[in-house]
């Protein structure tokens, strides 16, 4: 069966004012290489002339700024950059921030905002993943590691549940696609059985501000119909297989 093409993707492709292949010529590559050498030279000159703080000082200043930013989260949004992974590795960040979502402020609810790089966040995520199922051969450990050791962000509990649901769905989408490609009907049926239940997940009631359940429903419908197109598109955009195996 041919994969269907989403008309929105067709429009996006057609409407791009400049296409990346147009920028892949040898001339462009040579210019980029020369510009990179020039930029490096400029930075070395700046450093030798003491024309600004050394990189480590810049980094430290940024870290301090990040902490101040975190305290201002109430008036911004559900997530924002704050602190660094280094601080989290040292155990400086507790799970909770003491800040709660205001009605209408976030996509989720009024629960407490949590630090993504707190040591407790990984355990919380593992607990949520355990409540869902991962397809055979898939694990969320890589995704958990990637999320909890990167740049710190603020996330709500429902957001963590949504992430776990996303990883679970991805594992079954990828499993479905593998099975479809190899003609393994048994594995495809097993994946379909899970994917068709995801739109009814209670987690979606907490995280869906509109459109998410419909997106999962489209995947479920495609799985049931044996159409790889919508599943492949979602997997391409939302599923990083490298973090799920």
């Amino acid at each position: 069966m041919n994969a269907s093409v989403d008309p929105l993707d067709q429009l996006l492709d057609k409407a791009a004012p400049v296409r990346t292949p147009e920028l892949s010529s040898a001339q462009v590559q040579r210019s980029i290489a020369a510009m990179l050498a020039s930029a490096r030279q400029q930075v070395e000159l700046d450093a030798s002339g003491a024309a600004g703080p050394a990189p480590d000082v810049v980094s430290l200043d940024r870290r301090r700024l990040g902490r101040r930013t975190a305290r201002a989260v109430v008036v911004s949004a559900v997530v924002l950059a704050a602190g660094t992974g280094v601080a989290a590795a040292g155990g400086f960040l507790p799970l909770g921030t003491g800040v709660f979502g205001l009605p209408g402020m976030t996509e989720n609810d009024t629960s407490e905002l949590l630090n993504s790089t707190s040591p407790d966040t990984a355990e919380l995520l593992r607990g949520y993943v355990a409540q869902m199922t991962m397809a055979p051969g898939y694990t969320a450990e890589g995704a958990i590691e990637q999320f909890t050791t990167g740049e710190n962000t603020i996330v709500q509990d429902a957001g963590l549940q949504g992430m776990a649901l996303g990883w679970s769905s991805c594992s079954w989408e990828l499993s479905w696609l593998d099975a479809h490609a190899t003609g393994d009907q048994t594995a495809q049926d097993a994946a379909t059985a899970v994917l068709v239940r995801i739109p009814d997940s209670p987690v979606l009631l907490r995280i869906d501000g509109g459109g998410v359940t419909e997106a999962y429903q489209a995947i479920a419908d495609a799985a049931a119909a044996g159409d790889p197109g919508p599943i492949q598109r979602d997997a391409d955009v939302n599923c990083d297989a490298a973090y799920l195996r």
Partner: protein
Amino acid sequence: MSTTQDEQIEVLFHAHGSRLLGYLARRVLPVEDAADLLSETMLTVWRRRAELPAAPDDVPWAFGVARNVLANHRRSSTRRDAATAQLAQVLATLPPPSADRVEAGVDLTRALRDLSDLDREIVLLSGWEGLTSTEIGLALALPAATVRTKLARARQRLRRLISDADPDEDPRAPVFLRALA
């Protein structure tokens, strides 16, 4: 300067420099300004190399840098070095989009105007730059789950806007993303 970081930056721009250039070229007019913006992005990446994450997370991180450079862009009369001027010349001589691509650009621009800045950025980072939700999250400092939610919602809204579009609306609406500023 750390050799490892030097090499990582070289590899980053060798493999993804044209993608970053494309990101900038699709968002700025005149298009040749993208050469200056890429040059500034390179300088910023070198200056912030202490913060450079390990590959493959360095790619979305570099997109985040380019995004900030773009946000702070003001046309300047700063003299371009030879390499940047050469790239600007290449960009200035790209063939103009065909009529049907311009028409598609108008349709998309009309629909995108009704999305929030963040939703628009997420849709285009996915649709044009080919970034995954995780990568977009790294570029925008958002959890991937939030990106996934926003992307699904924004694409649904965009489909609705496109299907409801009035073909008789003023066709002089500015084309492409300059109109969204």
